[in-house]
C-alpha cells in the first residue's frame, strides 16, 4: 500500500534526460519537501502524478494504481498546483470556484471562502486582473478546496511576497492539521521546507541524491576547517560522509554529513588528524555543498 511509488523512473526530452532512474516511495501520510537546483527534474517528477506526462521508462503508481488508467478517480483525491498555472483568465474568481465545485463532489466552499478572506481576495474580480501572487493564491485554493488526500505543489510560493507566503503556508498547514494528508512540494525556500517537511528529498541531475527525515538531515551536517594539504584533501574527499572539500588559502574547509559532536573523532579516525574547528550548518549550506559545482 503506497500513496506514491516511483520505481526506476526516467524521462527524456529529446536528447536530454530530465530523470535518470528515480526511486521514491511515500507509503504513509507525510510532508515531503523536494529540493533540487533548476533543471534537477523536480517539475518533471511532479507532473507524472496528476498525470500530465509519461515516464520514458520505469513505473509510476499513485494510490497504488496506474495514474493514467485511474485519472478520473485519482483526480478527486489529489490536488495539484503546477509551477505555472494557467486559469481561464476571463473568469471571475467565483466562477472558477463554481467550476471546481462541479468537478469535485467534496468541494468545501466554506473552507475556500475562509482562506480567500485570509488572502484578501475579492471573489468578484476577474482572474486576468489579479497580480501573479494572487493568481498563485487562487491556484492553491483550487488545489485544496476539495480536501485532497494528496497535495502536490510545484514551487508553490514562487513570486509571493513574505506576507503572502506566510499566509500561503498557513493554509497548507491548516489543511494538513485537519486532514493528516500527504503533501509533496518542490521549493527553493529552505525556511519554508523546514517549516513544513517531515522528510526531505534532494533531486540532483535527475537522480535522488538524498532522501531522509528532515531532522536527521539537519542534525548530521557540519563544516570543518583544518590545515590544507593535498593528502588531507584527497583522503577527506574519499570519505563517504564528505559532501565537499574546498581550499581557502592555507586552510581546508570540508562539509560533512556527520553530527558536529562526532566530527572531530570521525575525521581523526578517517584521515589521521583532527580538524581545528567544527561548526554546525543549516540545510541551505548543506544543500549547496551537495549540489554545487565542484
Amino acid at each position: 500500500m503506497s500513496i506514491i511509488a516511483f520505481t526506476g523512473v526516467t524521462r527524456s526530452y529529446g536528447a536530454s534526460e530530465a530523470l535518470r532512474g528515480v526511486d521514491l516511495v511515500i507509503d504513509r501520510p507525510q510532508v515531503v519537501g523536494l529540493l533540487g537546483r533548476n533543471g534537477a527534474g523536480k517539475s518533471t517528477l511532479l507532473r507524472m502524478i496528476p498525470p500530465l506526462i509519461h515516464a520514458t521508462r520505469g513505473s509510476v503508481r499513485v494510490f497504488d494504481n496506474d495514474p493514467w488508467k485511474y485519472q478520473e478517480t485519482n483526480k478527486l483525491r489529489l490536488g495539484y498546483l503546477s509551477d505555472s498555472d494557467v486559469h481561464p483568465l476571463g473568469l471571475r474568481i467565483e466562477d472558477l470556484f463554481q467550476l471546481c465545485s462541479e468537478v469535485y463532489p467534496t468541494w468545501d466552499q466554506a473552507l475556500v471562502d475562509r482562506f480567500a478572506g485570509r488572502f484578501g481576495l475579492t471573489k468578484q474580480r476577474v482572474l486576468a486582473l489579479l497580480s501573479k501572487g494572487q493568481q498563485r493564491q487562487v491556484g492553491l485554493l483550487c488545489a485544496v478546496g476539495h480536501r485532497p488526500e494528496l497535495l502536490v505543489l510545484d514551487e508553490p510560493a514562487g513570486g509571493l511576497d513574505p506576507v503572502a507566503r506566510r499566509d500561503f503556508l498557513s493554509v497548507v498547514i491548516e489543511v494538513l492539521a485537519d486532514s493528516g494528508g500527504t503533501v509533496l512540494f518542490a521549493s527553493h525556500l529552505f525556511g519554508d521546507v523546514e517549516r513544513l517537511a517531515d522528510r526531505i528529498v534532494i533531486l540532483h541531475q535527475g537522480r535522488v541524491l538524498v532522501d531522509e527525515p528532515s531532522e536527521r538531515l539537519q542534525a548530521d551536517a557540519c563544516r570543518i576547517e583544518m590545515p590544507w594539504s593535498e593528502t588531507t584533501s584527497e583522503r577527506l574527499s574519499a570519505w563517504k560522509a564528505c559532501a565537499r572539500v574546498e581550499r581557502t588559502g592555507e586552510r581546508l574547509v570540508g562539509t560533512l554529513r556527520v553530527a558536529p559532536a562526532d566530527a572531530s573523532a570521525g575525521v581523526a579516525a578517517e584521515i589521521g588528524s583532527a580538524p581545528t574547528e567544527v561548526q554546525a550548518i543549516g540545510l541551505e549550506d548543506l544543500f549547496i555543498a551537495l549540489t554545487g559545482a565542484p
Partner: protein
Amino acid sequence: MLWRLAPDSPEPLYLQLVRQLRAAVASGRMQPGERIPSHRELAAQLVINHLTIKRAFDLLEAEGLVITKRGLGTFVADRLPAGHAAVGRDEVSADLVRAAQAARRLALTREQWNALNDRAWRASASPEDT
C-alpha cells in the same frame, strides 16, 4: 511565552521548541499547571507543521515537563521533574563555557573575566529585580 523560531538555524525546529519551553519553565515564564496552546493552535501561530510540534511535546512529555490531559489539553506539569532546573543550568553553563573560551582567546585575566561576569549580571537585571 514568546517563541522564537529560526528555520535557517542548524538546530532542528522541534529542538528549538523543546529548548525554549525548558528555558521558559526553568525561568518561571511558564508556571506549573499553566495551559499550553494545542498543537493545532501552535502550528497555526508559528506556521510550522503540527507534527513538528507533536515531536517536541512528545519529548517534553517523556521528560515529565508537560502533561497531556485527555480532552483538556497540554499543561506544564504541576510537579516538575527533579532536575528540571538543572536543565536550565546546563544551558547557561554551556553558554558560559563558550564565553570563557572567547575570553581566553583574548587572553583576559581571571579578574577581568570575573568583572565581565559581574557587569553582565547587573546588565541583565529586569526592573523588578532592582
